[in-house]
């Protein structure tokens, strides 16, 4: 497959006061990729996601998405370009029912543009999206208040919120965290399906085994810096990475 760079992050840096959260990180995301970003806690993975989606402005560096620089673009405009994200801490609209959660992204300019004319009944479109992301098993779930749903559904809902936007890239921030093994195994086919439909995925993750099954490229961060990048196999055998995860090797 021909590699088309979709998202290019160049030498990006961000400091919060004296804390260097992200230092000089660059990476490229090609169309159709599943890029995994791993690293110990506090290594700057989520900040990197915030920087690329416009929630946090970088001190230095550039984010180029589809040929335009978006490092100073506000987050809602970034989302309208097709670069969306999920949140690590689940943020459903807890007082709305599940399907009404999905009516909200349907109000965005991007959806109004891309689905022009087809967006008659937003309720029906929202229910369709819920079916696509696997809410169909229990017919009552879409009408339940989102605040009362279990975590597995909330993660799907979060994906659905991105999916409703007809995205080009989804950045999933720890979508597997807090889920049981069976919930994860049921979520993986959904992510594969999303990728088959032409969406490029970035997965920030701690669950390495599941990530390595999905991702075709993995990037490792530690203390705000990128310490390795490559195929899952290469990364696993990298001594730097082993040191970051397991500590210094004793000989």
């Amino acid at each position, binding site marked *: 497959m021909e590699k088309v760079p979709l998202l290019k992050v160049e030498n990006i840096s961000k400091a919060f006061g004296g804390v260097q959260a992200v230092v000089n990180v660059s990476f490229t995301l090609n169309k159709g990729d599943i890029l995994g970003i791993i690293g110990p806690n506090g290594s700057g993975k989520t900040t990197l996601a915030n920087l690329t989606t416009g929630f946090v402005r970088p001190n230095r560096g550039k984010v180029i998405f589809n040929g335009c620089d978006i490092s100073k673009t*506000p987050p809602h405009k970034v989302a309208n370009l097709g670069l969306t994200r999920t949140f690590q801490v689940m943020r459903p609209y*807890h007082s709305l029912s599940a399907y*009404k959660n999905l009516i909200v992204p349907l*109000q*965005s300019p991007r959806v109004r543009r891309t689905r022009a004319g087809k967006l008659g009944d937003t309720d029906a479109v929202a229910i369709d999206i819920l079916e696509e992301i696997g809410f169909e098993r229990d017919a009552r779930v879409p009408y339940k208040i989102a605040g009362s749903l279990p975590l597995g559904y909330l993660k799907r809902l979060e994906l659905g919120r991105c999916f409703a936007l007809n995205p080009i890239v989804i950045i999933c921030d720890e979508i597997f965290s807090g889920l049981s093994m069976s919930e994860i195994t049921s979520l993986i086919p959904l992510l594969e399906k999303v990728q088959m439909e032409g969406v490029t995925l970035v997965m920030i993750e701690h669950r390495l085994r599941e990530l390595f099954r999905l991702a075709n490229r993995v990037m490792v961060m530690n203390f705000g810096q990128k310490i390795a990048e490559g195929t899952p196999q290469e990364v696993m055998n990298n001594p730097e990475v082993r040191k970051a995860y397991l500590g210094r090797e004793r000989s």
Partner: protein
Amino acid sequence: MVDETRRKKRFDRSIKVRTEGLYAINSWVEMLYLILPRAVFIIGLLTLPLLLDMYWQKVICSAGTYALLALSFDLLAEYVGLVCLGGAFFIGSGGYISGLLNAHFGWSALLCIPIATISGAILSTIVLIPALRLRGIYFAIISFMIPMFARDIIVALSVFGGTEGISALGILPNVWIEVYLILIVVIIALFAIRRLVNEDIGLVFQAIKDNDQAVKASGINITSYKIKAVFIASLLGSFGGAYLSHIYGWVGISLFAMDFSILPIAASVMGGMGTLAGPVLGAFALTPLSEALRGFGQLRVVIYCFILISFIVYKPEGLLNYFQRKYHQFEHWEKV
């Protein structure tokens, strides 16, 4: 010692489940069940002036104004997440614009009120735009300052009649028009806003209240939605202000009084936050009450606070939620 404890169990009435959950309305009993509370509310409000004398009809007029403010407070606080204490500014801008139009151009009250409603709302929205980036208590503080700020500008610069205000404005033809105008506007506003919050735009408002970051990530410009919400809320307040100025035939700095910012909150607490109809009921209960207690002078404030605190402590859900529960559910005690 009694070794058995009892607890209260509540069940939804089956008629509620049928009518609201499934929308399976197929008998006149179910129709009546849905219509009854709404009909009692509307007919009750509309017959109220017929039973009262001139003085209390005037009280109803000001209660209606407070009801509009309470409605706008409830919309902003419970459905958009903006706790707006700037109700007095909505009243003041609507009132002054209407008063100035009437005094300078001699336009009739019935023409001035709609113009002042819209232009007052535009003015209020523009003034609040810089504060819309703030959330929670910070927005509340800024919005609370704005009416004071406006009052001080009028006093300091002696514009718009300064402390004297503008008097001898045109008034509405008679007391029946006054009282029914406000009651009909309150009823229309209430049902319009109840519908609005369940439309798509209302869902975005509620989403902003629940979680504005996720709304941003959904590609929606939250500031533009907040502006729309503030505009809708200030329409209600500005109408109230314009209306008051043509009841009193006078506008002055008391239109920026703190009462207009605070009483709506009290009315919302009393009626039940987030129910929309509750704050309206609260305003119609609280305004006559504070009028009836006028004889107590300063002591009135004490009694008034006492009532409020009792509501917060004993019935924090508010009156409307309480009545709704009694209407929709039956309760019984069972042994544990």
